[in-house]
């Protein structure tokens, strides 16, 4: 790199240091990133300990239930709480909207509840104060304000002509400006990057995820710094550069990321909860009704059960037949719920794919998905928790059904048959391990890094003709 390039870059830093407004704004944003990071770490830890406490509390309450019929315990159910990933402090992602608690019971899948966005003030819906929010939304705006006049002001003041007359060509001048503002962009992200490195170094998070987050956000910030400098070099007046850049920010950061999910929802409609329930009820009825003595499916099930135990009548079974019917019903309904969930997940993936296909137009979509995925707070991570919870729900319900089968007498059980309270302690407990963060080759990581890299490459290519024009634009 030539001495002129580094000198021009250093001069941009000196200009920023001596421009009180720019310096104060930059320091405030860096402090905001730091404050957001510290507050988010604290918040994540508080949520995590609260969830652990609630989980222990509901587990204890379950254990303390008196002697009961196991089917009553199937409906007493269990609450399970989703633990946060170590990097969730950086980007809470969809966590506030999807909910983090599921009530698990027999015969039905409940959606996650207690999303913070539903509980908190409306303000929360516009984004929590996390490093991701500040870096994704506010940092580009600051970079625009710091760089929109970086070249156009030289032209307006007349210093461009004087600079070029010293023998500096357009390429060196533009490269110096780009490096100067790239340095400023990275300095703005530095508090968050240092914190990520610190957490990784202390073993609080995986190095890979931390480094990929730093790489992604560095690319995102560099992209805005480069864009601002290039627009500034391409227009005659600083005012025009500011209008263009704020327009790009409004469309790319504010409008598209919010409008596209709405368009996706119209293009691919998800069934409502009631529609899903009605459809499942209809499907269940089609398979069979255990209460209908003439139902072909359950008549067949009865025949198979009697044959299995080598008896002729239900009353002769060594196990409780109603419990067996309950287990079969649970198996069928779980299968139907799983298929319905897979259909919904397919539709949601289609919606997400539609939105993501615009990431080349709005790279915020790329950095947002990358950030959520690496922070363990994206829909994929939420889906992983739902799958684990559903697998557990089936095991939990069937364990109770098995207790009914084994311990409740098949005949003459009395009016209020119960089993001992000690049984509840043997029922499986939900144990969820947060999945490891995705690696570089993950489809939620590499394509998004490629989008950011593609933008940077496109801007570098755009810089070549802009630099050539700049060298001759001083007449």
């Amino acid at each position, binding site marked *: 790199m030539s001495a002129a390039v580094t*000198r021009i870059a250093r001069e941009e830093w000196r200009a920023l240091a001596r421009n009180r407004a720019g310096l104060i704004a930059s320091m405030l944003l860096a402090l905001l990133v730091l404050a957001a990071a510290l507050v988010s770490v604290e918040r994540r830890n508080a949520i995590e300990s609260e969830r652990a406490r609630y989980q222990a509390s509901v587990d204890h309450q379950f254990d303390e239930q008196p002697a009961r019929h196991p089917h009553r315990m199937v409906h007493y159910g269990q609450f399970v709480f989703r633990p946060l990933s170590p990097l969730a402090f950086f980007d809470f992602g969809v966590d506030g909207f999807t909910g983090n608690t599921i009530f698990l019971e027999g015969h039905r899948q409940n959606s996650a509840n207690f999303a913070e966005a539903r509980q908190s003030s409306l303000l929360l819906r516009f984004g929590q104060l996390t490093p991701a929010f500040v870096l994704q939304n506010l940092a580009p705006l600051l970079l625009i304000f710091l760089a929109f006049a970086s070249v156009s002001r030289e032209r307006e003041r007349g210093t461009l002509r004087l600079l070029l007359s010293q*023998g500096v060509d357009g390429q060196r001048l533009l490269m110096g400006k780009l490096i100067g503002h790239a340095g400023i962009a990275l300095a703005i992200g530095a508090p968050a990057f240092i914190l990520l490195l610190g957490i990784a170094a202390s073993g609080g998070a995986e190095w890979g995820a931390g480094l990929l987050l730093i790489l992604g956000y560095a690319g995102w910030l560099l992209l805005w710094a480069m864009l601002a400098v290039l627009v500034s070099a391409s227009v005659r007046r600083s005012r025009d550069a500011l209008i263009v850049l704020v327009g790009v920010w409004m469309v790319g950061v504010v409008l598209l990321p919010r409008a596209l999910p709405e368009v996706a929802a119209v293009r691919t409609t998800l069934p409502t909860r009631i529609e899903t329930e009605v459809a499942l009820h209809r499907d269940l009825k089609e398979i069979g009704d255990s209460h209908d003595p003439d139902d072909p499916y359950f008549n067949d099930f009865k025949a198979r059960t009697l044959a299995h135990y080598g008896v002729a009548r239900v009353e002769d079974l060594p196990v409780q037949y109603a419990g067996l019917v309950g287990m079969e019903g649970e198996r069928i309904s779980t299968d139907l719920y799983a298929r319905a969930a897979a259909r919904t997940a397919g539709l949601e993936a289609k919606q997400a794919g539609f939105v993501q296909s615009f990431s080349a137009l709005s790279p915020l979509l790329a950095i947002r998905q990358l950030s959520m995925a690496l922070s363990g707070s994206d829909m994929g991570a939420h889906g992983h928790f739902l799958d684990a919870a559903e697998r557990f729900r089936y095991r939990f319900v069937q364990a109770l059904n098995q207790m009914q089968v084994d311990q409740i007498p098949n005949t003459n059980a009395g009016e209020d048959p119960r089993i001992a309270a000690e049984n509840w302690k043997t029922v499986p407990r939900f144990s969820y391990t947060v999945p490891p963060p995705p690696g570089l080759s993950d489809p939620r990581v590499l394509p998004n890094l490629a989008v950011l890299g593609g933008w940077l490459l496109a801007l570098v290519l755009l810089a070549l003709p802009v630099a050539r024009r700049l060298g001759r634009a001083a007449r």
Partner: protein
Amino acid sequence: MMRDAAIDVRALRHSYGQREVLRGLDLRVAAGEIYALLGGNGAGKSTTLSALLGFIRPGSGSVQVCGIDPATAPQDARAQLAYVPESVALYDHLTARENVEYFLALARAARDRGTVIDPALDAVGLPGHAWDARVGGFSKGMRQKVAIALALARHVPVLLLDEPTSGLDPSATLEFNRLIETARDRGVAILMVTHDLLSAVDVADRIGFLSEGRIEEELVAGAAGARFDLNALHARYTGAKVSG
């Protein structure tokens, strides 16, 4: 017969769109010579400077600065010249010293304070207390002095001055004229584009009248006595009739 020209412009033509600004300009300035280029608005003075600086690619003809074509090798040509623009643009957040140092650094010129920058600022008469003051508070004349100090500190063979005395008071103009005479005596070729007839008469070795894109008339300073006939020059410049 002219010595080897540091600035050599031959049959230069240039147009902005349909408007032809230079129509066969011939201009040569030798080392150790001050050439004052006079002309009305739109005569092509600024376009001539742009061609010498390599900011435009002329339609036809040739331009050479110390034997280098600025259109094809602008950086090499610019390394041979220093330029003082009419409206001196400096960085307001930098001091006079810092401005000079920054531009010298970009020009890859020597920029030692004790031996280069301070003597240049001193030579142009900028008061010492202003050297470390930010130029944002400077008058036009003080800015002009900083720009000239920069040009002198470059120690290059060619100096291009665009309306250098515009905005200077008479005593500052005289000081400036002495400065460029010093530079000329060091062998620098100086092309001064100006409206300031008095200053041109005071220092120029030759005066060229630029009209409609070419040198219409060129006058050479007399060897002794009055260098130029000021009245005739004034009449020539303004188009007024000279009495007597």
